[in-house]
């Protein structure tokens, strides 16, 4: 019978693969669903331009 630590080792390998696969599949799905313009449309300080005027 496998001891608990051997089971944990296999479990850790399996979970690593699951998390990795989730990230890669979602990455491919996202990149193929949205255009590059939308994905890279973030600009620094845009929210501040609306909410903070930097005036005393």
């Amino acid at each position, binding site marked *: 019978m496998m001891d608990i630590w051997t089971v944990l080792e296999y479990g850790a390998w399996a979970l690593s693969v699951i998390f990795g696969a989730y990230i890669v599949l979602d990455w491919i799905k*996202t990149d193929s669903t949205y255009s590059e313009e939308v994905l*890279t449309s973030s600009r*620094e300080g845009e*929210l501040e331009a609306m909410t903070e005027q930097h005036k*005393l």
Partner: protein
Amino acid sequence: MATSATNAPEKVGLLRVLGPAHIWALGVGIVLVGEYMGWNFGVAKGGAFAALIACWFAGTLYTCVAMIDSEVTSTVAAAGGQYTQAKHIVGPLMAFNVGLYLVFAYTMLEAGNAITVGYLMDTVAAMTGHSGLDQRPFIILSIMFLAWLNYRGVLATLTFNLVITAFAFSSILILFVVTAPWSDASPMRHAELMTDLPYGWLGVLASMHFGLWYYLGIEGTTQAAEEVRSPARSLPFGTLAGIMTLLIAATLTWYMCVGLMPWEYLGGAGVPLFDAARLSGSSWLVVLLGVGTLFATLASANGCINDASRAWFAMGRDHYLPSWFGAVHPKFRTPYRSIIFLVPIALIFALGAPLDQVITFSILSGLLEYTFMPINVIMFRKKWPLDTIKRGYVHPFHPIPALVLLALCSVTYFAVFLGYGTQLVAMVAFYIVVSLWFHFWRYRFVNRGAQFTMPWPRPKGY
């Protein structure tokens, strides 16, 4: 395919969802592992009192860092933290270097934390009678799980950090209360264990390097600037509460450990707080501090992934790196490509490099970053005096904290040079080479006007 979905948004950006408690958790979470392990190598260099001097010396250094950071970042509410500050205040080449310092410091620290998770699992397995545990699946799982968490959204990521960081900090407080130094029944033996400086003042200087471990990473709070609901208020509040927490945790940790272990043992201990719990004679304290050690390690790795990816993302968004890295996930609103890109790098270092080298490169990158900060804040006050930009926090006694920070950094460079001269020279040579690459090649791709979109007034004299 690259076509927009039917009801796809036109623009996506990071999400402003965090509060001051998340900022505290990000700052303290990255650092607290340094209380659980690492700081005690300074004890081996110069004895117990040298480690205390290093603790407060580095505490002064980081208090200056926290105050300076709080003022500048309360006006620069954008991802990238010190990279973005450098871009606006000093210039592109400084910003490029600072961005790399950040990514290196955090990714190396993440790798170091993952190695530690593997070591902790091996220690627990050995305590239960299992020898020869394969540490690799636990190292990889810690990186993959935390990358997944970061990928899915910043609110869950930092709420998770808040819970495990609060647990790890509370464990230190509980250990202090249970060992009851004020009572006669306390297991602490300061009177018997404390000695004079075994290697004199040179030992104190050599232990300075390890004083940084108590606080290294508190400056990471600024990376959340674009995702916090009220940056001008929350960033200074979270950062300053964080450094106060760490000063308390560091001093208590030193006090308990030197009262329970002789300095000759403490200086080489792998997990000193865990050992302190074992010496307290309470089995539930051993479990508590064991879990606290694991949580502190995970919190640090988690915060590192968050911070390194924001710095990498900000550099991509400004075209300092390929703009491909400047993408935001339309659903999770995270810099997902930067998170993904840094995963294999962290894995390579975690699986293929020794812990002390990994941590040394992290500390050296951090030190270069701290040297930039006083220059940054002096230029900030000069170009944008107090009456030109509204600040969420104004740090007192300017320019004394900046000058103190500069002086303390100089001493630390000397101390690091004594112990890790080759690495220091190699690191500086690396940054010189990449600076040349940036200046002569990469900067031509930067859209010079588009990188300054903050609604700031013109600097004084321009």
